């Protein structure tokens, strides 16, 4: 394909969190992005959520900055109310036909004042609030929407349907209403397409068993999410929908519209419902600690990072009841007391219990809508039996038509972090094919001229935020604003409903400009999350971004002083006064340019490391892979096949060959990192390797893909007989074609070996699916083999559920055990003695098949392995004889503290690395320029590892493609007149930023001269400043005068 036929733009279909992440990754890497969204604004389902599991972060709070970032990105074009009609052309050069519905509101004129909505006479169901409340026919979907422009719902508008009314046109002060607006047909040329249209919640309507149509007190989980939300129908109060009574008992019914082929056709597991039910139950309990919350489930599937912990806490700390029972049906109580009746089987007593609940929440699953399935058909991409887009383990985000990628729920049911990971992976894939046309269609963000305010008297603007009711529910926001207006130098004080929303941002910038203000204070939430956003806004008004102070009256105010509103208001006033006192002394600061070295280091040569390296090398960057072993492949060298049946060894061999022969990849095997110096853009990593004693690599970014390993269990007699193996040892037997894998008459798998135990509380995620894959393979080799899987919960999430079904259909027997009643492995003594460790060939991969055969024969005549386990169906212990015992052993991290220290990245208590944000930055570290993927992050199968490797590469690419970044302005500075050249600052600084001058006027004659600070190396901690005995150093933005002004003004 010649460059002429490649277009350096990408179309992202869907503006949910997955689409947003993909668009941002691409737009920051040199590709122009068209974001085509069906509804009037972006945000998707995440915008509807109250909180996100497992940390219960406020969903809108973490999402809002991303929405705003998309809204203002110069290289993202939002095409709202639009859907793809047809895709012509091929990879690199697509012609996409898009139909955009009329909005009837001129987006360039609408100022989002809301006057139209207020006057509109037509009320209809509000989709954002799951139809629980009404909205008007002219509307914005939700207050923080991007773009924040109104739209008319043509079907319901009286004017558009009946030709009478026209009130909004008369009301609109901006003249933005246009009833003559027409649908448009757009043709968009792009090189790649990313599909991220998301899911539709399963609709339980029409299924009598759920009683959903008859009773208002049976709600879906999406409806309940809106009830929990402070911006929802009851302002976050949980009330029984039918009569607004205070509820005492709430039940969640899991697997509604998932793992169900009777009432619907959704045989797959929706992956997220167990966790969101736990989250909702915990939040409901926080609203009312006396509430009784019960979750009825089939298997608890808490297989993600931090999920199992959340599950344990829900049970132990929050007192949420978990009952394993698939509820047959729900019906309303006839007569008093009012409620919804459920019958369930109690496993402990063996009795059927009838119970009454105030609210029933149906934990509905995910579906791909018929429209999207049809669109996929028209586009010529294959779907799975569950209706999701078909991808493969080794190319997890590529659809079957080249050039079309997918991310989020369209690829299979999944949670937010996994969607974000795939978004990065899809962006990487979509960009790679267009790499030659990078930066050809993008625009540079305008260099904004800053107004020189030197010498001007301070003119301070103060904005106080309601944050909906988050702040205003406790603090008297208007009183704080009134007070702020009386403070010296404050020229303007106002309040905002949501300061972070697009309209408020635009308003703030406009006011700062109009009124000639030169300092800005926002009293709202935490600067740790929102300072950059407001700084950007200030910059857009032509004011240096360091002339900004943020006052935290939410996290440090309203949220923690709920019962003391007056004192919280006083505290807020004090904090605003302190910020004003500091802001008056603020100065504009400059940011130095920092070059990003264009080389990359990838630590780890497993599947993740190789995938990340290849992605960046394919885009033209020089990548160095540092691998501790002598060979590439990591854990994958012992894996036989993936859940979709891809043969791993074959694929691994191909990948390793591509790595070895890639002109942009340097490989260091047998290598160990000795030292890492530097920081983002300018790392220096020193290694020794099999080829050289000492090599120093200069690089701009690093990707940590150090992996994890399989636990060698100390229980269940592992290591005492060659017929007792771990899951991965069985894979090795498959690869070696060990005859035992076909000759064994019976095989037993024990799940959760070393996982979900007190000393290792996390779930290893991969073992349930992998054991079933292996069990099916054994069945394939020997259909007569009796296979038993002993498990605690089967966690075949997503479409892996189909494997679980297949296994049961093929006669594999599943026996559940509990942590208190773990299986026992028994063997006659004399057999153990002559089958000692010396014969255990599994320690040695290179073992000849012949040896195994001999040993296999020897064993087959030997003692019998018997497994004793309590069967919950028979309600008695059973003894199973096994010719092969497979232990699904935990994935254990390396807990690489040395590496953590080198790159200044954290490790969690389980020993895995900690990402920058559990939901929205799963492949980034908080340390700039360092990224994370694969098992080092958390146990995951090969497809997810590859997706995350590409996501990490995509994040790295965002940085690399900038070539230079700005350093921070808050750095230390020396006053040479006062400096005595003592050198304490040089001794104190961990970054080598200060040095004593050796040349120039301030150089020392005998010893060192006066100190100077290298602003690129300075991180702005201020340790040198407080240590300077002469007071010659100052930390810009936190200087002595500014901090003392805050202290002084705190008192009166």
């Amino acid at each position, binding site marked *: 394909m010649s460059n002429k036929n490649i277009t350096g733009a990408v179309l992202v279909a869907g503006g949910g969190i997955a689409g947003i992440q993909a668009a941002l990754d691409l737009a920051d890497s040199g590709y122009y992005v068209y974001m085509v969204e069906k509804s009037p604004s972006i945000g998707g389902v995440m915008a509807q959520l109250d909180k996100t599991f497992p940390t*219960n*972060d*406020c969903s809108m709070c973490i999402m809002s900055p991303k929405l705003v970032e998309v809204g203002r990105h110069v290289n993202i074009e939002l095409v709202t109310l639009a859907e793809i009609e047809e895709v012509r052309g091929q990879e690199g050069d697509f012609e996409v036909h898009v139909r955009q519905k009329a909005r009837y509101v001129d987006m360039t004129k609408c100022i989002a004042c809301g006057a139209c909505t207020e006057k509109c006479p037509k009320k209809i169901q509000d989709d954002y609030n799951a139809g629980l409340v009404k909205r008007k026919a002219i509307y914005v979907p939700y207050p923080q929407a991007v773009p924040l422009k109104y739209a008319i719902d043509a079907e319901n508008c009286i004017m558009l349907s009946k030709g009478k009314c026209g009130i909004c046109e008369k009301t609109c002060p901006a003249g933005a209403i246009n009833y003559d607006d027409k649908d448009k047909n757009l043709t968009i040329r792009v090189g790649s397409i990313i599909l991220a249209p998301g899911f539709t919640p399963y609709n339980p309507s029409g299924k009598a068993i759920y009683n959903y149509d008859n009773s208002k007190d049976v709600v879906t989980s999406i409806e309940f999410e809106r009830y929990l939300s402070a911006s929802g129908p009851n302002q976050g109060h949980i009330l029984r929908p039918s009569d607004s009574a205070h509820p005492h008992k709430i039940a969640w019914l899991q697997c509604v519209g998932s793992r169900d082929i009777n009432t619907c056709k959704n045989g797959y597991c929706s992956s997220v419902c167990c966790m969101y039910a736990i989250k909702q139950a915990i939040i409901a309990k*926080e609203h009312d600690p006396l509430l009784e919350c019960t979750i009825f489930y089939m298997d608890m599937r808490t297989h993600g990072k931090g999920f199992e912990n959340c599950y344990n806490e829900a049970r132990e700390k929050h007192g949420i009841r978990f009952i394993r029972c698939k509820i047959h049906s729900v019906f309303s109580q006839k007569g008093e007391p009012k409620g919804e009746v459920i019958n369930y089987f109690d496993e402990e007593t063996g009795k059927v219990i009838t119970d009454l609940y105030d609210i029933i929440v149906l934990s509905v699953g995910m579906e791909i809508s018929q429209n999207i399935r049809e669109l996929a058909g028209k586009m010529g991409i294959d779907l799975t039996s569950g209706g999701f887009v078909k991808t493969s383990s080794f190319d997890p985000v590529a659809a079957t038509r080249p050039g079309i990628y997918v991310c989020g729920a369209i690829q299979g049911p999944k949670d937010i972090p996994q969607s974000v990971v795939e978004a990065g992976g899809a962006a990487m894939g979509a960009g790679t094919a267009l790499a030659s046309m990078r930066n050809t269609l993008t625009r540079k963000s305008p260099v904004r001229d800053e107004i020189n305010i030197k010498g001007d008297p301070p003119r301070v603007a103060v904005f106080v935020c309601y944050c909906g009711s988050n702040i205003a529910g406790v603090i008297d926001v208007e009183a704080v604003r009134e007070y702020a207006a009386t403070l010296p130098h404050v020229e303007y004080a106002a309040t905002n409903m949501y300061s972070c929303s697009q309209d408020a941002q635009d308003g703030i910038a406009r006011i700062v400009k109009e009124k000639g203000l030169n300092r800005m204070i926002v009293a709202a939430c*935490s*600067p*740790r*999350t929102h300072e950059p956003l407001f700084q950007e806004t200030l910059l857009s008004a032509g004011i240096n971004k360091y002339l900004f102070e943020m006052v*935290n009256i*939410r*996290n*440090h*105010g309203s*949220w*923690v*002083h*709920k*019962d*003391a509103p007056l*004192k*919280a208001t*006083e*505290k807020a006033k*004090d*904090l605003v006064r*302190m910020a004003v006192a500091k802001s008056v002394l603020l100065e504009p600061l400059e940011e130095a340019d920092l070059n990003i070295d264009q080389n990359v280091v990838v630590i780890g040569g497993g599947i993740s490391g190789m995938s990340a390296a290849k992605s960046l090398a394919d885009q033209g960057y020089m990548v160095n892979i540092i691998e501790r072993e002598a060979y590439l492949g990591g854990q994958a060298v012992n894996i036989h096949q993936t859940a979709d049946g891809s043969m791993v060894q074959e694929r691994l061999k191909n990948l390793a060959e591509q790595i070895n022969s890639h002109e942009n990849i340097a490989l260091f095997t047998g290598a160990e990192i000795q030292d890492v110096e530097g920081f983002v853009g300018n790392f220096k990593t020193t290694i020794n390797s099999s080829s050289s004693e000492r090599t120093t690599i200069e690089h701009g970014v690093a990707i940590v893909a150090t992996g994890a390993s399989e636990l060698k269990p100390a229980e269940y007699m592992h290591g005492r007989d060659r017929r007792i193996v771990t899951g991965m040892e069985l894979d090795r037997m498959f690869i070696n074609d060990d005859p035992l894998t076909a000759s064994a008459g019976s095989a037993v798998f024990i799940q959760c070996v070393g996982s979900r135990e007190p000393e290792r509380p996390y779930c290893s995620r991969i073992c349930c699916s992998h054991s079933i894959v292996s069990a099916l393979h054994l069945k394939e080799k020997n259909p007569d083999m009796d296979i038993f899987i002993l498990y605690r919960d089967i966690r075949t999430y997503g479409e892996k559920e189909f494997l679980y079904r297949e296994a049961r259909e093929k006669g594999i027997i599943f026996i559940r055990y509990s942590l208190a009643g773990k299986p026992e492995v028994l063997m006659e003594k004399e057999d153990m003695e002559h089958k000692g460790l010396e014969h255990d060939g599994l320690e040695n991969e290179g073992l000849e098949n012949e040896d195994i055969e001999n040993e296999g024969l020897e064993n087959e005549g030997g003692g019998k392995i018997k497994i004793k386990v309590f069967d919950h169906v028979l309600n008695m212990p059973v003894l199973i004889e096994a010719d092969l015992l497979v232990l699904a052993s935990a994935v254990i991290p390396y807990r690489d503290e040395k590496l953590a220290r080198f790159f*200044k990245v954290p490790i969690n208590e389980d020993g895995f690395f900690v990402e920058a944000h559990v939901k929205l930055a799963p492949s980034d570290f908080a340390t700039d320029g360092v990224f994370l993927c694969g098992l080092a992050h958390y146990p995951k199968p090969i497809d997810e590892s590859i997706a995350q490797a590409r996501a990490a590469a995509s994040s790295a690419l965002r940085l690399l493609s900038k070539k230079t970044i700005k350093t921070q302005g*808050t750095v230390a500075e020396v006053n040479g007149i006062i400096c005595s050249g003592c050198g304490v600052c040089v001794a*104190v600084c*961990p*970054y080598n930023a200060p040095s004593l001058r050796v040349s120039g006027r301030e150089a020392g004659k005998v010893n060192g001269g006066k100190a100077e600070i290298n602003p690129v190396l300075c*991180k*702005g*901690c*201020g*340790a040198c*400043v*407080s*240590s300077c005995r002469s007071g010659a150093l100052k*930390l810009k933005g*936190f200087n*002595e005068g500014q*901090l*003392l002004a*805050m*202290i*002084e003004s*705190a*008192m009166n």
Partner: protein
Amino acid sequence: MSEMTLKDVSEAQKGFECKTIKIKDDSEPQKGFECKTIKIKEVSDLQEDFEPKIITILCNWCTYGAADLAGVSRFQYPPNIRVIRIPCSGRVSPKMILSALRNGADGVWISGCHPGDCHYLTGNFYARRKFILMKNFFEYQGVEQGRIHFSWISSAEGVKFAEVARDVVDSVAKLGPAKHFVRH
């Protein structure tokens, strides 16, 4: 003085709003009750209406994050602290504590990352060294024990932040208004 039940006591304890309370003698001993009694008694010793102001200097990366987390988790603590955010506890100089006392702060609380966890690698080691010297110095000068506090709280320790905040306010409140170094 009014008599209160255990439930009232725990309610009152939440916001530290109730100053004079007595525990019913016949209240049944319960798990954790003993420690509650002590705390309540301490509160009851306070002067009526004394609301101390405490200058609180927090490092951006750990303790300020913990305070944010306490907020997200809705852990309640008394509203007497006035937070100043700085990059690192290593930025704190003795002058700041002195200035707080001179300007009439009833207490000072400085908190950073746990030693060894500093975002800037070693900043809190310097802070720790300074704090020990400063504490000795101020106590030598007559500033009561319990007015100046130092702590190490990581950004994951929201619970600890709320607990320490309660303890700091409690111990400063017990001492009454500051007298030493105050400029009149």
